């Protein structure tokens, strides 16, 4: 204390001696400021402003729409409620979901992965409404497809309204002009595919005299095992189960089958021979299209809509000559048998949080609102936009109009990149009106989606365990989830041998996989798959 100024320098005498009162004031200031800060941290517990406001959280694929924009206003007018929507970029949706679940500000209606560990724990603790059997009252929320409804359950309970998607979207996008130049036909079997990849790599499809191309483009896959990665699709072609499958009367994970190993042996050959982009372990999914458009690689195995995406990109680059893309469906394996990779028929569900919606009555109101949103009128608004503003109806088609007007373009973007995600009935690939693109190539491509889907659905391999989630997978996911996809990439890149890959599969079983397999078998038996 010696260095503190002496009282004279502070003009001690000029200041009134501290009284009890002023000491109290300081205490009060301290208490108040603490209280303010504490309440600032835990605020937001107040009741939702009556029921004329609805908070939602969903995925976003572009820039967030203006809350006062035309589309949002139209939606608000339709449902008669103010909307407060948290738009979260798709890439970080899982993380943001967990953070939101941990906060005390859970939106009333939240789009979630109903099998994610964070959500399952929260739902089982009672944070969300159990909607099992409650949806039948609402004509537009009542599940349209029983199997999809079952798939979107969590161990026999419906925690949300599924957002419908086409049941089969897998396909191979191929450079049409390269095929033509090398005199190749569209592949029908995995052997054909290999031959195309080989030719694309070694026979100079771009005609620049250099060996600078490769057959297939694969990115660093962000998902885990059985998440519709190109690897998962190829494994299915070879006959491996999609996720889980029956072997000797018991459900086993797809990677514990000889077909899985065979498929990967085949793909490893691709890597060794340079038929796949050398940076397949690191290429960002956001840049997946680049090598295709730049003419470095000739094929992509992914969802069919990538074909129209690539068409659009070529159109931007060379508007006069852009018809360079073709789409092929699932392939037969060498012995002629065909197994196709289906999708789940939905993508995440809309769950209703109990935080603000506390009574059955409030729940009924919210469901009625969502029912309106899923009506014909709501679906048109969410998937097509505002009739007469950004599109015109032509029979069963929606034809884009006025796209040169910046305001109309904004409407179109808000719908395509954002509001479509609020749809449960009509959605991506299943618009209320089907989109009628303004060029012949894209139109043909869209027609092809349906042809291929209906053809491949005949041989689709469904995952019987979609509707269940094993408790051990929830509690031990952190150690287990990366084992198989990591080992697969390591094996393909040549970093480990097949024996080491098998050892990793055994490691999965030893670290808790044995329990998961048991639980999945029990749960599927109980819930009827």
């Amino acid at each position, binding site marked *: 204390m010696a260095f503190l100024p002496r009282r004279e320098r502070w003009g001690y005498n000029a200041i009134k001696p501290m009284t009890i009162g002023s000491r109290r004031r300081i205490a009060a200031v301290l208490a108040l400021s603490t209280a303010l800060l504490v309440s600032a941290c835990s605020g937001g517990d107040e009741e939702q402003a009556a029921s004329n406001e609805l908070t939602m959280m969903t995925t976003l694929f572009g820039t967030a729409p203006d809350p006062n924009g035309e589309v949002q206003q139209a939606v608000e007018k339709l449902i008669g409620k103010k909307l407060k929507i948290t738009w979260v970029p798709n890439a970080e949706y899982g993380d943001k979901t*967990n953070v939101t679940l941990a906060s005390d500000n859970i939106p009333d209606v939240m789009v979630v992965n109903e099998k994610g560990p964070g959500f399952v724990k929260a739902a089982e603790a009672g944070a969300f409404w159990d909607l099992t059997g409650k949806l039948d009252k609402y004509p537009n929320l009542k599940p349209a497809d029983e199997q999809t409804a079952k798939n979107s359950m969590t161990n026999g309970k419906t925690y949300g309204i599924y957002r419908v998607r086409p049941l089969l979207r897998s396909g191979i996008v191929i450079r049409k002009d390269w095929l033509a130049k090398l005199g190749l036909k569209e592949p029908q079997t995995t052997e054909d595919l290999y031959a195309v990849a080989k030719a694309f790599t070694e026979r100079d499809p771009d005609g620049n005299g250099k060996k600078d191309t490769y057959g297939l483009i694969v990115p660093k896959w962000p998902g885990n095992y059985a998440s519709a990665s190109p690897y998962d699709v190829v494994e299915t072609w070879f006959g491996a189960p999609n996720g889980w499958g029956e072997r000797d009367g018991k459900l086993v994970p797809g990677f514990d089958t000889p077909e899985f190993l065979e498929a990967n042996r085949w793909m490893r050959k691709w890597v060794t021979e340079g038929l796949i982009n050398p*940076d397949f372990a690191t290429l960002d999914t956001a840049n997946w299209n680049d090598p295709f458009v730049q003419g470095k690689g000739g094929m992509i195995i992914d969802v069919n809509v990538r074909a129209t995406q690539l068409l659009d990109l070529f159109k931007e680059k060379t508007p006069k000559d852009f018809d360079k893309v073709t789409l092929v469906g699932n392939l037969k394996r060498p012995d002629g048998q065909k197994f196709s990779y289906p999708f789940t028929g939905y993508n995440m569900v809309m769950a209703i949080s109990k935080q603000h919606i506390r009574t059955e009555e409030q729940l009924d109101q919210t469901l009625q609102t969502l029912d309106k949103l899923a009506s014909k009128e709501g679906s048109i608004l969410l998937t097509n936009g505002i009739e007469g503003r950004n599109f015109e109806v032509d029979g069963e088609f929606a034809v884009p109009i006025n796209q040169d007007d910046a305001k109309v373009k904004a409407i179109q973007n808000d719908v395509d990149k954002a509001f479509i995600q609020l749809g449960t009935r009509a959605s991506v690939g299943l618009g209320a009106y089907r989109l009628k693109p303004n060029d012949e190539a894209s139109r043909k491509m869209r027609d092809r989606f349906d042809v291929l889907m209906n053809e491949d659905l005949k041989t689709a391999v469904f995952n019987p365990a979609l509707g269940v989630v094993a408790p051990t997978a929830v509690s031990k996911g952190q150690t287990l989830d990366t084992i198989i996809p*990591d080992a697969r990439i390591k094996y393909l890149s040549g970093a480990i041998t097949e024996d080491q890959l098998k050892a990793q599969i055994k490691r999965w079983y030893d670290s808790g996989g044995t329990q998961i397999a048991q639980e999945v078998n029990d749960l599927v038996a109980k819930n009827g798959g």
Partner: protein
Amino acid sequence: MATDLVPNQVVPPAAEVTPPSPKRKRRARPVRLWRELLRYRWLYLLLLPGLVYFIVFKYLPMYGLTIAFKDYVPFVGYSGSEWVGLKHFQELFTGPDFGRLMFNTLLLALLTIVFVFPAPIVVALMLNELRIGLLKRSVQSLIYIPHFLSWTIVASLTYLLFSVDFGVIANWIHGLIGGQKVDYVAQADWFRPLIVLQLLWKQTGWGTIIYLAALAGVDSQLYEAARVDGAGRWRQFWHITLPSIAPTVVVMAILTSGNLMDSGFEQIWLMTTSLNRDVADVFDTFVYYIGITQGAFSYATAVGLFKGLVGVLLIFGSNWLAKRLGQRGLF
């Protein structure tokens, strides 16, 4: 504060004047504290906001650490969640990840100490020997620019330069040495060298600032005296420059040691791929992965708490070591 320790507030002022007996002194101390507080009340008032800040933002949130000993479910809340004792710690220590995490974290820390920590010292000493002021200043500015780039940009640059497909540097090295193309960004063997290189590139320049300041503070009379005694530049460096910045180096070393367990989350997260995850997983990325991606909040908190405890031990340890070696410690 200490009010309840004050038995009576009516001790005569004489207590301050007369040399108190041990017993009376003990009773008088709280009173003196109050007087002290009263006398310098405006200074203490100035202290208050800072104190409130630390209590509210640093100490109150520590209440949340209790979830490391619970099965925390956000919806049920802190108090509603069930106590599970040391379950999560047990899981961590006996789990399959612990050994790998510890090894990776410590190895990266060791590499940081050996390569990254001394780099700014060496560069600062070299800059200090430069005679041309303009050159010195421009070099200094140029090398600390990378500090202002975010890790996302550094990682993107690394991918661009070292990618096996189109990386400029990767291709250049390949042209120089030939042989098989090396995938620097994906291969596990190259993970640690790349991390160290990134750290060197990004942080060295910034780190020199503190040492250059210490060097600027050295009394120039010392150098003059040494020159008069016939000391060459090397002698001056050895006997004046080095001892002068030694205390700064020690303080920096102690501060660094507390962060040894922090392996730079962003940097490692961005550089992790399926191929190098075995060597890339450290406590920081693990906490993020299990806490945010998997939603296992309690387990993540337990891991973070363990990491924090090790950090505290390291600070005290290196402080003790510094004192043992005859340097002034931090506290």
